[in-house]
């Protein structure tokens, strides 16, 4: 996908001429900037890149990228992107979706894209609210949330997007947030490098309808104490002094401990390449929501056969075995007679 012979690009090459129209202060701006700045580093070409989105605030994203793009219909971006990626494995296909688009109306397409492992990079902007329709609860909103459609508090139990993706056996699962450009870019770089479906949940602040939903963990002053960086091959620890850590208890649950209590040797060593998803799943369950210490980074990155490549291989094998199809042969294949 990387064409080393291509001339280098700059951010300017990746920004379209369209005026960006998110609400001032929206977390989407920082994600857009991070992506536009990242693309030149990935060594890819704008004409080989396609952003596909559904409906929602996040789904306006393709209009602002000077690539090929499609702003499609609510929830269907993973299905459309799957068709494109299967037809054109030479392209770099990205999906931009949100918690409503990807987990509610489009939940089915999301899990099936992940299980097939088609080579697309899915960015799910999670702001735990419906923004474009002006403030109803979303499938990631917390129980009890008071919104326009739930004046007495939401009764819906929320999805955990990472648990869901892992349940669908996604081969790449990660989480990042909109306030740390470096972490965001590093996570997206890893997602882009991954061969197969990559799922990245991005905590994104909606400053109009759900302001501060992630402040407890993502604001500069809280980050050290509440974000748990996952680093492959390293013991999982966090805190301003690295004084806290994660262990696996005898029930297979991940639990937070003081390193001083258990000793560094007892800490769980992160292994994103573990073939079975149980470790990643346990980590995805560590925090009940973005109000308690929460792991970020790559939860899982395993190799699994990529879908489009296999589709192409079947076509190539059929043509190698029997030669390219001949229409006149096909028409007579059911037996013929002469009159």
């Amino acid at each position, binding site marked *: 996908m990387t064409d080393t012979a291509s001339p280098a690009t700059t951010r300017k090459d990746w920004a*379209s001429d*369209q005026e960006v129209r998110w609400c001032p202060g929206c977390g989407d701006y920082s994600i857009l900037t991070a992506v536009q700045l990242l693309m030149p580093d990935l060594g890819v*070409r*704008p*004409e*080989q*890149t*396609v952003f*596909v989105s559904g*409906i929602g605030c996040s789904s306006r994203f*393709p*209009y602002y*990228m*000077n*690539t*090929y*793009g*499609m*702003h*499609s*219909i609510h929830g*269907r971006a993973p*299905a*459309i*992107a*799957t*068709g*494109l*990626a*299967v*037809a*054109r494995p*030479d*392209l770099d296909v990205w999906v931009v979706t949100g918690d409503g688009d990807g987990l509610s109306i489009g939940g*089915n*397409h999301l899990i*099936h894209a992940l299980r097939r492992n088609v080579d697309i990079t899915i960015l799910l902007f999670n702001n735990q609210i419906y923004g474009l329709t002006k403030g109803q609860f979303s499938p990631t909103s917390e129980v009890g949330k008071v919104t326009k459609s739930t004046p007495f508090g939401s009764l819906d139990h929320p999805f955990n997007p990472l648990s869901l993706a892992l349940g669908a056996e996604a081969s790449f699962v990660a989480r990042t947030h909109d306030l740390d450009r470096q972490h965001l870019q590093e996570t997206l770089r890893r997602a882009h490098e991954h061969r197969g479906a990559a799922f990245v949940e991005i905590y994104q602040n909606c400053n109009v309808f759900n302001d501060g939903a992630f402040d407890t963990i993502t604001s500069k002053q809280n980050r050290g104490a509440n974000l748990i960086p996952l680093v492959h091959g390293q013991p999982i620890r966090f805190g301003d002094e690295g004084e806290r850590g994660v262990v696996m208890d005898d029930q297979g649950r991940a639990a937070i401990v003081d390193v001083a209590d258990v000793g560094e040797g007892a800490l769980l060593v992160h292994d994103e390449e573990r073939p079975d998803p149980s470790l990643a799943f346990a980590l995805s369950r560590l925090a009940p929501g973005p109000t308690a210490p929460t792991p970020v980074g790559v939860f899982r990155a395993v190799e699994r056969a990529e879908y489009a490549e296999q*589709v192409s291989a*079947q*076509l190539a*094998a*059929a*043509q190698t075995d*029997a*030669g*390219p*199809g001949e*229409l*006149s042969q*096909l*028409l*007579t294949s*059911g*037996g*013929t*007679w*002469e*009159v």
Partner: protein
Amino acid sequence: MTDTAAAPTSSGPINIDKVVIRFAGDSGDGMQLTGDRFTSVSAGFGNDLSTMPDFPAEIRAPAGTLAGVSAFQVHISDHDITTPGDAPDVLVAMNPAALRAELAIVRPSGTVILNSDTFDERNLKKAGYVEDPRHDGTLAGHTVYEVPMSSLTVESVKDLGVKPRDADRSKNFFALGLISWMYTRPVEPTVAWITKRFASRPQVANANLAAFRAGHAFGETAELFDHPYEVKPAHLPSGTYTNITGNTALAWGLVAAGQQAGLPIFLGSYPITPASDILHELSKHKRFGIRTFQAEDEIAGIGAAIGAAFGGHLGVTTTSGPGLSLKAEALGLAVSLELPLLLVDIQRGGPSTGLPTKTEAADLMQAIYGRHGEAPLPVLAARSPADCFDAAIEAVRIAVTYRTPVILLSDGYLANGAEPWRLPDVATLPTIEPDFATGTNHVDEDGNETFQPYKRDPETLARPWAVPGTPGLMHRVGGIEKADGTGNISYDPRNHEKMVHLRADKVAGIARDYPATEVEGDEDAAVLVLGWGSTWGSIGAAVKQLRADGHKVARCHLTHLFPLPHDLGDVLRRFERVLVPEMNLGQLSRLVRAEYLVDATSISKVQGLPFTGGEIEAHILDALRALGPSDGAQEALARTEARLATTPAPPAGVTLAVAGADAEDA
């Protein structure tokens, strides 16, 4: 068995010009296979033919019940035919339920062949018979042959070491052998087929061969039957023929269209009866570079096809009624994106799950209008199993040329029905030009060369198809209204109105490409029968028969249902009466009334079954009678009445060989 039976020679078979045979049994009895084999052998023998499988929605309903009856009707003839026949001349009933379910449609004085082994108390009760129909007058007027097929089959395989329960499963081949003898079908093709088909299970192959031969020998030796019959080969136009179902023809049409357009095919589909066979067929043809994608649902099927179309492939999605509803929103997106896309709807009985294995043609309005907003798209319909091939190519031509989603309608009757098809010369198939955009198409105010994704071809109003991977043509498309030309988001009221009109004008302009609307039959007739879709065969049979009696009748059959042909209004207004037979409650008739202020009369049938020729004939006769006397009409009426008096069920299988007429002449 037929009107033109010749006197028997001392030993040879009696020649008849056509016969309609209906094989009926339990779902597990293999009647579809039996019918299919009889059809193939007859096709190879050179008969013209038309078939209609008729099976239940349940995969295996309780054995012996009416719900489990599966039937296959085949009409073979020595002349050109277009329907599977109105009333079977011969019914093969493998059990009491099959007899009970099918007897009513057998023609009076027709032949009934029963597997007498199954007529025991238990099976009679399951079928709902209080008395044994063999002895209570139920079969009066019919020629009845009771053949103990189960026990003769078991007997025939007893030396092969087959367990009795397995042995009974070969009885459909016994029936096939018997009917093959009765109608003087060659034996070798079936022997060869059984040997090949069951090559991996020699015991099954041997049992089926033994049963087939036993059935054949039974016909020859049992002194039950006076003599066999023979239907000579038909005099069809010379060429190479194959026997083809609508779904196979449609799949092959897509393969051909992809080749003619130089586009790889991407089929996104979700299994649904009766459309799944197209997915099955195309999934075999990877040598043609065809990608088939069994999606997680109907919406993903069309979604993936739209994604592939954006990538420069020929995006296709196949479905049936409920799936058409589910795909409606994505069709609207495709209208807005103005990308080539083909949706194939194999209509079935609706609404909702309806009659999933039975035919209907009630999706026309949904196909034309079933989207939110002003979302026009072209709609076409195939008229016969073989025509599905040509219709698929024409649908793809329109989709690619005009950058638009297209709906091609077929139905369960065409999908599963078969007829001989004279193979086209592949060198003469139309070429389809995708004409991908390769460079800029506009110069902006500052003199810069730019690409405008919605700048249109002045003639077709089609927009450029610029596929990812093309340098310099990066652009964004989407469902939000676009500014004319640039394609950027626009909420400008005037622009929206302009875009709505542009999309409508583009689709309306497709009618410029149509050939003149053809009227067949009598140009000076008072009655015109207007049809679309699978009613073609039955209308043709009816019109042919009445014209043979001396009536003046014309018929016109539409392939393009939206936009309608420009000259259709003029054509319809030339006739005093316009009859519109449809397998719905009058959808096309309503359209032509609205569009042309023509007093069209709807003829409706919604039984999950196609019209018979006789049914349509009766409606035309009513119209002719209502028009009152005119030159020759009384004589023609007398001939028709005399004919109907001798053949209570009007014989079908008559051909439409009326001269083609140029609509512009009248």
